[in-house]
């Protein structure tokens, strides 16, 4: 087909489109090469809308809280992949839910979090003196957690290696109830788990225990510290599973998994979390912190037979860490930081915080709210008492800024199942874990500098 001079033929049109496409593909390259990361994170003057990324079950609470403050909450369901994409596109939510214990170092080291110290200094609702020490997991000074600027705040927290047990099942197995003050050793706890497990034809009908806590890496991390060691090197740039303390933790975990008495990396819990299994009487002891009491409290029958115990210890260094400290942080590139802070203040220091404290889903992150923790039933009284005593042993364990917890748990998921089935020695497992994890961490360190 001939084309009149000056007009665009179809082939030329398609060629021009292809050219435009190529040009478009070249643009991000140029953009990436000149990006200095100095996003101003400017605020939308007087904007009444904030974007909050959180879990679906939080949606109504967050929107109601926003309404009370005259803010419209644009809710985005929590999705780590989406968050990464939004951060990469420099268009993050104004407020993001996260795990203070393991997220802070990673995001702060990459300059993605807003330093909240100036906000706290001006706040009338949130006084630094009233903050529970757990909020220190949201601080990072470039080398360790617990010091430096405050990047977020926990909404509530638990000491995640404590455990709940069902008295009816322990009684049926003729086992003594664990002490409310003295921790069990991990070996004692394992023995109890073995005795409480019930099987039939290769199937576990009742799990004796769950020692997976909030993840296998953090579990091993806490156990190693309790044995007097540390998984991370001082500069947080490597892990060492070969130390005697880490080996002890690893051996214990391998024995637990090989005994097949509870969910583990080779045989995860099909329910996804402990509550349905525990509620159905298919798990006798669940390593979950105080927060689990929120679920137990909603079921009177299970409440009656549930009690709380201190975190077992692997050695003489008694620690009871928190691996979550779930809360919120404001990204540096957030568009409406003032609105986000307004919400933050109310959510952590106002009525929503009081309601959360009374709900029993965690220890409040403000000291002044602690008396509001539920203490009406026998199980709640016992849990409160045990928890109060355990707080003495709370400690902040620093997590590396060079890798995400998912990456390190990913290595464990890759290495441990084979070791559990293949009877590999703890020493060989340690070597493999060291190699793969340190490789990950080194790549991250190169980027953080």
């Amino acid at each position, binding site marked *: *087909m001939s084309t009149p001079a000056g007009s665009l033929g*179809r082939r030329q*049109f*398609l060629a021009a*489109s292809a050219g*435009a*496409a*190529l040009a*478009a*593909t*070249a*643009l*991000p*390259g140029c953009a*990436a090469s000149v*990006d*200095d*990361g100095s996003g101003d994170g400017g605020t939308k003057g007087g904007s009444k809308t904030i974007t909050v990324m959180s879990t679906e079950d939080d949606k109504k609470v967050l929107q109601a809280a926003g309404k009370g403050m005259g803010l419209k909450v644009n809710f985005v369901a929590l*999705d*780590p*992949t989406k968050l*990464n*994409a939004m*951060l*990469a596109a420099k268009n993050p939510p104004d407020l993001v839910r996260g795990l203070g214990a393991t997220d802070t170092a990673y995001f702060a080291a*990459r*300059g*993605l979090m807003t330093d909240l110290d100036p906000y706290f200094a001006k706040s009338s609702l949130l006084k630094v003196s009233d903050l529970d020490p757990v909020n220190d997991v949201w601080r990072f000074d470039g080398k360790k957690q617990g010091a430096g600027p405050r990047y977020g705040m926990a909404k509530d927290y638990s000491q995640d290696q404590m455990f709940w047990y069902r008295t009816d099942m322990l009684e049926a197995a003729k086992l003594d109830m664990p002490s409310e003050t003295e921790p069990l050793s991990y070996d004692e706890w394992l023995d109890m788990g073995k005795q409480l497990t019930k099987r*039939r*034809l*290769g*199937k*576990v*009908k009742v799990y004796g225990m769950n020692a997976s806590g909030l*993840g296998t890496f953090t579990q091993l991390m806490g156990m190693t510290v309790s044995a007097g060691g540390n998984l991370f090197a001082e500069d947080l740039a490597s892990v060492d599973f070969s130390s005697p303390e880490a080996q002890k933790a690893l051996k214990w975990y391998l024995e637990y998994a090989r005994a097949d008495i509870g969910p583990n*990396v*080779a*045989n*995860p819990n*099909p329910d*996804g979390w402990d509550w349905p299994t525990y509620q159905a009487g*298919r798990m006798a002891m669940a390593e979950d912190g105080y927060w689990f009491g929120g679920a137990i409290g909603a079921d009177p029958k299970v409440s009656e037979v549930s009690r709380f115990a201190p975190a077992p210890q692997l050695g003489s260094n008694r620690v009871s860490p928190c691996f979550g400290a779930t809360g919120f942080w404001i990204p540096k590139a957030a568009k409406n930081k003032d609105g986000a802070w307004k919400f933050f203040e109310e959510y952590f220091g106002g009525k929503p915080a009081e309601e959360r404290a009374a709900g029993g889903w965690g220890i409040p992150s403000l000291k002044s709210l602690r008396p509001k923790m539920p203490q009406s039933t026998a199980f709640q009284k016992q849990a409160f008492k045990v928890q109060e005593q355990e707080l003495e042993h709370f400690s902040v364990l620093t997590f590396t800024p060079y*890798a*995400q*917890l*998912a*990456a390190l*748990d*990913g*290595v464990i*998921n*890759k290495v441990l*199942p*084979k070791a559990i*089935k293949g009877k590999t020695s703890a020493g060989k497992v340690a070597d493999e874990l060291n190699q793969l994890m340190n490789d*990950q961490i080194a*790549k*991250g360190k190169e*980027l953080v*500098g």
Partner: protein
Amino acid sequence: MSTGQLTDQAAGTGTAPSSPSRPPAGTTRRPPSLRTRRARAFYVFTVPWVLGFVALTAFPLGYALWLSFTNADGLSQNSRFVGLDNYREVFTDPETMDSLWRTGVFTAITVPLTIAAGLLLAVLVNQPIRARGVFRTLLYLPAVVPPVGAALTFKLIFDRDSGSANGVLDIAGINGINWLVDPYARWVLIVLTMWAVGNGMIISLAGLQDIPRELGEAARVDGASPWQSFTRITLPLLSPVIFFQVVTGIIGSLQSFMPLLIALDPTPRGVTAVPESNYFYMINVFAEYFANGRYGYASALLWVLFAIICVVTFVIFKLSKGAVFYSVEPEQAKPKARTIGGVR
């Protein structure tokens, strides 16, 4: 200008207009030619697609290509250009090579199985039997179930401690099997993939119904057995449909995310918990992107997969020559000249 004048002008007998650039008042513009109208329609219909292609395909592809030459983690400001390092790593990383191998084996098993099963079912429900429509519906129904729902159901069925699969074994006094972990996890995944065999059945059924009945009848008259009739007439005539399923099946299988569905935890942490035998190439890509934060390397993985798919598709097309029979050779098919009422 009177109507008479206009008629004269149109007939080429009127006087020339006073201004060559402007038609005389009262005249109507010539309607655009068919060619112009077709060109306009072409632009109107293609522009939205081209815009979508640039924004949603070319841009992400180009961005991923750029990332594949860096060590970016998507978040840090210190990423740098690393040249072909990521591509070299793809071919030396045992994790990646293993995942590619597993994906290839899975593809080699599931694609032929799915097509064969779909064809078999299509042949069955193409028979003149009573309640044929009911059978067709029942066999197609599983394909309508969303993959996530099917995966959840499978997870419940094959759970070691409370699943019905082990419940059946229990009744027979046989030890329960841990289906959802290695080495059984891959077989559960294959069965889950076969679950949607109704899709293949519908495509094959459409192909079967397009085969003229007279051909089968003529073969029968000539003394061909049903098997001969199927292999010598039905299969060759169905070969374009089977070829289509092979190509799309292989591409879909190489990009499979099914293991993540059965894990039902599509998070960076969940993806790393996929059993090793189901740790496919795309699972590895997802883990490198979002668990390990290696955007550069993961982007290189995607470009390598793109290249692999192009090569595989090219090879399949080459191999298909002589095995796929078209009633009209695609490259020789020319549009017929437009005629009206049979007259040019």
